[in-house]
């Protein structure tokens, strides 16, 4: 999956979970401060990402997903690891 597609899929997940329009979700938008994401929604986003990309996000990485940019980076890393595993 290309980086652009990864980003688009993640935007769509975040939009579904937060209710914010896709347009409002920019690379540096902070989930917690700007998108009213709370702990349960953070978990929901993580579960949705795992399901969409068929990857496993480690618990210790969950707090690192606070912006779209970070989420895309993490997913790309995990996808690369999966491909080379």
């Amino acid at each position, binding site marked *: 999956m290309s980086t652009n597609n990864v980003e688009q899929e993640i935007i769509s997940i975040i939009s579904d979970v937060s209710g914010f329009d896709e347009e409002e979700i920019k690379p540096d938008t902070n989930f917690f401060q700007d998108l009213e994401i709370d702990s349960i929604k953070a978990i929901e986003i993580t*579960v949705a990402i795992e399901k969409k990309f068929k990857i496993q996000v480690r618990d210790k990485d969950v707090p690192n997903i606070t912006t779209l940019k970070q989420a895309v980076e993490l997913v790309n890393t995990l996808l690369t690891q999966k491909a080379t595993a």
Partner: protein
Amino acid sequence: MVLFIVIPACRESFFKKSDMDDAIIIGAGIGGLVCGCYLAKAGMKVLIAEQHYKPGGYCTSFKRNGFIFDAAAHSFGGYREDGIVRKVFEDLEIDKRVEITRFDPSDIIITPDYKVSFWTDLDETINDFQTAFPEESNNVKNFFNFLINPDTMFLARMRSWTFKNLIDKYFRNYKLKAILSFPIFGNGALPPSKISAFIGAKIFTEFLIDGGYYPVGGMQTLSNALAESFKEYGGELQLSSPVKKIKVINKEAKGVFIKNGEFIASKYVISSCDARQTFINLLGKKMVDQDFLNKLNHMIPSLSMFVLYLGMDKNFNPKQNIGSNIWYLPHYSIEKMYLAAANRNINNLSEYMVRISSDKKSILAFINTSCRNKIYWINNKNKLIESFITKLTQIIPDISKNIIFKDAATPYTLYRYTLNYRGAAYGWASTPSQLADPDFRKPSFIQGLYLTGHWSTQGLGIPGVTYLGYNTANLLIKKEKTKK
């Protein structure tokens, strides 16, 4: 005939009216009612269809032989200044319709060796635990500190933890761990090794540390007040109206068929009832993605309850705290208790919760139980009532002489009144692997369909479903606003 057309004052007007409903909500439990109120208040045209003849789901009351009993839920939490239930009740003007009291302590745990309470003053609660377990004094403080100052990130990180992982991090004494896990078992129907740490922590913050609230007049008054607000915001509530089918065209929900085959079109369908029913009966297996169907068939529901209702005579003058949830813990293995509950029979009763009403006229008590089947309960309900009453003498020694009415709800009764699968008390079992599955909030394979309430894998009890109802409504309101 005079027709009054009421135009509710508080409705916002960014939604254009049409004949079609904007949203149909299946089920008038607390989840559905809260969601409906917010949508209607925002100006949407909303219908709630409820199969029962009264609103509330598990939050209802009924009258028998002059006694009023709460059917299932019997108190609530999350009503502190910045609590979710307080926010919602203020937004929806419920606080103007119902007087809310609070019992102090909200919960008392009694074991053969200890009695500890959850007081409205947290310091007092901490003190109770520290006095009982002086060697764990600092750990008690740290544990409660963690709960009341939750770190969003840390909570999210705990997603795959069980409550056992959390409690083992703080404590050593197995009796203390059992005491702290017992109300989690009672309010979540899973033992510490199985229940999600996230949900366990929420039960502490939303049920125990900030619990014990009660609407004067009984739990039904809460549901009635929500129904009143809903109607005042322009919503339509149809009681005795079971939804039979959700209509889907091109993978998009288009409305519902209710009892007599009548079709009601709507833009969104929000199911606030049992999730298996939603997918298997209302949508139909053909409409459901195969992978999801496989998952659904492996999902585990929470256990059910056997609820005992006792009506007491005028001479009943208990020494125990009235209005408090009194939890009796006869031994310290919650894991064994869970196994017994999962294979419940009339000879393996041990732990329970009992609550004496504030007017001392009635008692509600319950135990977790597996669903069993209808025949089992027909044959054993009365026997279980008798052995349960005998067990209650551990807490209220001379209870039998004041009982003038007794009845019980079995899992089958709970199912019959609410259609919750297997009479499940709390929706899906709150295990880490069943937590926060997005397909149980907004299934990816059907557009326009949302789920809310305690089957949406994100929360349970009145605070949990209040949050979910509020949150689901906000998702839709935001979505509609951005479209304009």
